[in-house]
């Protein structure tokens, strides 16, 4: 596979990582996503990693970069479907993926993205319970 497909769904971009990525593929994904966000004006990026059996520090860095670049381009990123064994390993590896929002699955990820469009992070969400 030369590149990972990026799907557009309204204001969101969806990516599903199904293969064990070699470095170039991961870097291409980073660039492609950034370009697509600019081109489409997407407000949210959802990355499905439910098929990823390994996240090492390189992939972790790629995910961090994607989240940071998206934010600069006024889009939120949510990573969904992390496998439990991967989560356990990441903590022990010392990779905490700070600044990357996560959700259990695509549905919850989309809910999170929609909510963040309504209440952008940084704004107070202390809406009075009237």
């Amino acid at each position, binding site marked *: 596979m030369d590149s990972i497909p990026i799907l557009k769904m309204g204001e969101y971009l969806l990516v599903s990582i199904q293969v*064990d*990525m*070699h*470095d*170039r593929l991961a870097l291409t994904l980073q660039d492609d996503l950034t370009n697509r966000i600019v081109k489409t004006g997407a407000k949210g990026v959802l990355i499905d990693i439910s098929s990823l*059996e*390994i*996240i*090492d*520090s*390189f992939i*972790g*860095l790629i995910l961090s970069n994607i989240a940071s670049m998206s934010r600069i381009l006024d889009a939120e990123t949510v990573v969904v479907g992390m*496998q*439990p*064994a*991967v989560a*356990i*390993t990441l903590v*022990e*590896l*010392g*990779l905490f993926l700070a600044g990357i929002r996560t959700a259990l699955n695509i549905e919850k990820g989309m809910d999170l993205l929609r909510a963040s469009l309504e209440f952008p992070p940084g704004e107070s969400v202390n809406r009075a319970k009237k």
Partner: protein
Amino acid sequence: MQRSETLDIRSSSDIVQVRQKVRMWTQQLGFSLVEQTKIVTAASELARNTMEYGKGGTVQLEELNDENRHGLRLTFEDEGPGIPNIALAMNDGYTTGGGLGLGLSGAKRLMDEFEITSEVNQGTRVTITRWRYFNRR
């Protein structure tokens, strides 16, 4: 029967090969899914170090058999520039290459045994081992 196999690490696609080969071995040795993930992740970190910093090298996979345990030992070797200050390199976050600086310290945390030797201008060898005990469950 002690098995052993050596793989080349020259390019980033070799890193993928190493991950897949190590995954296969961990499965054959009966490691749990979490253990497999830790071992393969450690291998990925060290394979990348070998390629990037070591300018290419090899990894030897060895099956170890003791009375009450099986083990997988991975030895990463290169003839690259070497590490001038190993203690410094072992700090979380220390990197000379723009990475996250977790490769060596992370691999050590993920495995049972970790050994590193390095000589400037001669090369580096990192050996990691993980055991699976029979009578534990």
